[in-house]
Every structure is written in structure tokens, then in C-alpha cells.
């Protein structure tokens, strides 16, 4: 019995150590953001507080615009993914047609070879479409997501066929069946998938870096990287203030709802 206690307190210490390590970058970001530049690398509890870094960061780069771009981007991708993946998943889950297996295999390939890797050719495609340096170009390669189609197909398959038949008897058309039967039952999947998608695209960097080059299209990540890469060296206070301002809303939303997220993952069967 005593041995177990010993083990469990060791367990607790380990858990706390890892938690502190994981939390420390955010803690450091908060520290530097609310203290003068001189305290960036000195952790003196008597250091004066300041709001200056936020003001400086806000004035130094068009973060409001970057933030807006990111919000537009993430919303656009999410809506498009929901629509396209729902339609495709429904076809895969409930229709018999020649070529279904081949098409599904093609979709699964995308789980492996994500658009992030084919940056050169996708860039050429965007150039051919005249879309370079547009927000649409950042989102387009991700809109038909293999992961989304796969997940929704799994969920739709668990929906009892009788429900669909009943709706059909009532005279519901294809889209009505989708809207009234399948989508409500797949809510947790949408939530879970939406979370993965939002956190991914909010933080995505390489592809937006390549395909954008003006203030009007740049998402926050690219804006932050340009802001950081100046000749005068890293200025953690202002950089972190900018990071907190632009990631703050997402951070707070995720922290408030994290319990629900886990539950949606559970119900969606993503595990």
C-alpha cells in the first residue's frame, strides 16, 4: 500500500513538471508582453507592469488586417470543407456506383500526401488560375479534405438506414434527407473536425507564406514571421504581445470549451 502511494506521488510530480514545461512558453509570452523590454530575460517579480508592448505591436504592423484575413480564411475553409466533405461522404456512405472504391482510395491518398508537401506544383496551379496572392488561394487546396470525407463517411455509415427510408417515405429529397437526418446525427463529428481544421489553418504557415505577398492577403502567421524577421533582432516583448493579441481569441475559446471538445471527439469516434 505504501509503495503505491510512493508511486502515485512520483506520478503527480511528473505530471506537474510536464504541465509546467508545456505551459511555460505561454507564461513567458505573458511575462514579456506585460513588462518593459528590459525585463525580457530577467524574471524580477518587482518589475513594473506596462501595456506599451501591445500598443507598439499594434502600431508596428497591420495586425488588425492580418487577423481579419485569418478569420476570413479559416471561416471560408471550414464552410467549404463542411459542404464538400458532407456531399462526398454521403455519396461514399450510402450510394452504390461503379468506381466508388477507386475514388475512395484516391481520397485516402490525400491523408498521406497533403497539399503542404506539393508546394511547388500547387503554386504553379495558382499562378495559372491567376489566384496568387489571394485568400482563396491559401484555402483552395484544403477545401476538399480527405480527412473530413473519411470521418464523415464513417459517421454517416452508423446512421440507421431506416431513418433515411422513413424520411424518403415522407417525400424528402436528397438534400432534405441529408439536412434532416444525417447532419444532425453527425454534429459531434462536425464539431471535432471543425476544431482540428480551425486550429490547423489558424496556425498554418508554409503554404500561406509562399502564396501570399501583400498585407491584404497575409494571415497572422505570415504577418508575425515578417514582423519578427527584421535586422534589429528579436524583440520578444513586442513579438509576444503581437502573438497574444492575434492568438488570444482562439486560445480563450479553446480553453473555455476544451471539455466539450474532448466529448465531441469521443462521440465522433475519433480515437
Amino acid at each position, binding site marked *: 500500500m505504501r509503495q503505491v502511494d510512493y508511486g502515485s506521488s512520483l506520478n503527480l510530480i511528473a505530471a506537474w513538471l510536464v504541465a509546467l514545461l508545456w505551459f511555460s512558453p505561454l507564461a513567458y509570452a505573458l511575462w514579456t508582453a506585460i513588462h518593459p523590454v528590459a525585463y525580457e530575460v530577467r524574471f524580477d517579480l518587482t518589475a513594473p507592469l506596462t501595456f506599451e508592448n501591445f500598443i507598439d505591436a499594434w502600431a508596428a504592423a497591420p495586425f488588425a488586417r492580418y487577423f481579419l484575413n485569418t478569420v476570413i480564411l479559416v471561416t471560408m475553409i471550414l464552410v467549404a470543407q463542411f459542404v464538400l466533405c458532407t456531399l462526398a461522404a454521403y455519396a461514399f456512405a450510402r450510394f452504390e456506383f461503379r468506381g466508388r472504391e477507386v475514388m475512395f482510395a484516391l481520397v485516402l491518398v490525400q491523408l498521406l500526401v497533403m497539399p503542404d508537401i506539393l508546394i511547388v*506544383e500547387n503554386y504553379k496551379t495558382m499562378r495559372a488560375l491567376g489566384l496568387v496572392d489571394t485568400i482563396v488561394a491559401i484555402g483552395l487546396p484544403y477545401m*476538399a479534405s480527405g480527412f473530413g470525407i473519411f470521418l464523415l463517411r464513417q459517421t454517416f455509415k452508423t446512421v440507421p438506414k431506416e431513418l433515411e427510408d422513413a424520411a424518403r417515405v415522407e417525400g424528402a429529397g436528397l438534400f432534405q434527407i441529408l439536412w434532416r437526418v444525417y447532419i444532425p446525427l453527425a454534429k459531434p463529428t462536425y464539431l471535432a473536425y471543425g476544431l482540428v481544421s480551425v486550429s490547423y489553418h489558424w496556425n498554418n504557415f508554409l503554404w500561406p507564406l509562399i502564396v501570399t505577398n501583400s498585407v491584404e492577403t497575409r494571415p497572422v502567421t505570415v504577418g508575425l514571421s515578417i514582423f519578427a524577421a527584421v535586422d534589429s533582432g528579436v524583440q520578444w516583448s513586442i513579438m509576444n504581445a503581437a502573438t497574444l493579441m492575434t492568438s488570444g481569441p482562439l486560445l480563450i475559446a479553446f480553453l473555455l470549451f476544451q471539455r466539450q471538445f474532448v466529448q465531441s471527439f469521443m462521440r465522433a469516434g*475519433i480515437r
Partner: protein
Amino acid sequence: MRNTINLRLSWVNAWLLLTPAMILVIGFTHFPAVKTFWNSFFSTPRGKRPAVFTGLENYHYLLQDDIFWTVLKNNLLFSLGTVPTSVCIALAMALWVNGKLHGRGFMRMAFFTPTVLPLIAVANIWLFYYTPGFGLIDQIRSLFGLPEQNWLGNPDYALAAVIVVAIWKEAGFFMVFYLAALQSIPPNLREAAQLEGASSWYFFRRVAFPLLMPTTLFVSVNAVINSFRLVDHIFVMTEGGPNNASSLLLFYIYETAFKFWETGYAATLTVVLVVLLSIFSVGQFFLVDKRIHYR
């Protein structure tokens, strides 16, 4: 009669439902993949000079390109360093948060923060951690009388340093999957085990872990893919240095294509990356999948 019409209609409907998604999937995955393969046999067009067919010349160059071999080795080490560690830590985190530890609310939040913070920005914070002399790690080391250590500027440590950041970034995200899986293990299983006097370690090893196997498969395939895709922090922390000691395949592809403007050779490198990814993920799938069945 009615049935056949229905069938034909359903055939048409299915394709109508599928087409928009398939156009995009094929347009941004299969088409560029095939074109990349095709272009890997051509030279890079420059100014008014068009691309010319050069056969295997790019591949020949690849074999002789010592940077490619360094980067390939780095990437394999990066995968080896990030995949098992981040999966194990994720599992431990999920067990901690799912248990009855003090402060598990804070823990869950702490573990989850990296998922929401952009790596490109947080990499600057890690840069501070690793800075010799006044960086966080060295400030702690100096309390123990240890000398300063140049983590990122030393080829022996640079790769390890960026691996740590990748693990930090990923583990909390994977934890969510494990957590969802743990919570869906029926509670009566645990109660039954307790009644029979099984220790919690025994329960984990013989009951929970096997039940988590599908999650482990899913998470580790993702971790492998990410290990070939996650390069954001390289831009900020090392730019692949010193002398390519921390450069990864995708970062080298980016440099080749968008800094050197060698799109032909970049295509060749991309082909290697895609082949590697396929081998790894498919291999892993079969390996782990088999084990799931045997248990």
C-alpha cells in the same frame, strides 16, 4: 423498372455529390503529384529558356548532393525522435488528465496550449530558451554552476533542440485523441478489474492499452506524416543550420524551389518525400494493424 431508374438516378446523384470534392482533391493532390513526378525529369526553366527534358539528370544530381543526404538523415532522425516520444507523452498526458490528480484542470489547459499557439511565433520563445548565456535553459544551468551551452549553434545539438520543440507542439494535440478513447472505455470494465484485485498498472497493460491500439495507430500515422511536414520552427530557430545540421526535407525543398528557383530539382526532392511518406505510413499501418489483430 422503377428500381432500375432509381439505380441509375442514384448513380448520377452519387457522382454529382462527389464531383466538386473530387475535382479539388485531384486538382491539388493527384494532379500536382503526377506533375511533380513528370517535372523531375526536366531542367528548370529560366528567363526565356524553357525547361528541357534531361532524363535522370536530376536524380543523378540527387545522389551526389551531399546536402540531400544530410537532410534525409536529419529527417529520419527527426521522425525517430518525435514520433515515439510524442505518442508516449500524449498517452501519459491523457492518463494524467483522465485520472484524479490534483490540478488536472490546469494540466489539461497546459497540455493543450501548443495546439492553439502558432509555431512560427512560439519558435521565437524557444529561441530564447536555447539562447546561450542569458537564455532560460542557461539561466537555470548557471544556478548549478554549469557553463553556457550553445544549443542551436552546435551541430551536435541543433537537431535535438528542434525535435524537442516539435514534441512540445504535437503531444497535447494527440492527447485529445487518447482522452476521447479513454473516456469511452466502459467504466464497468475497470470496476470488474478492481473487484478481482487487479492493480491499476495491470488494468492499463492488459485492458486499456489494447483497447487504445486503434488510437495509437491513428495518432502515430499522423505523427509520421507531421514529422515530414512540420518545418515552421526551422525558419525561426536555425534556418536549417549550422551547415544543414537541422535542415529537414521539406525545408530543403522550400529553399530549392523558392530561394534558389531550382524548380526542376525541387520536384525531384518532392518525389523522394512522397515515396518516403508512402513507405512509412503504409508500412506502419500493416505493422501495427497486424498487432491489433493478434492481441
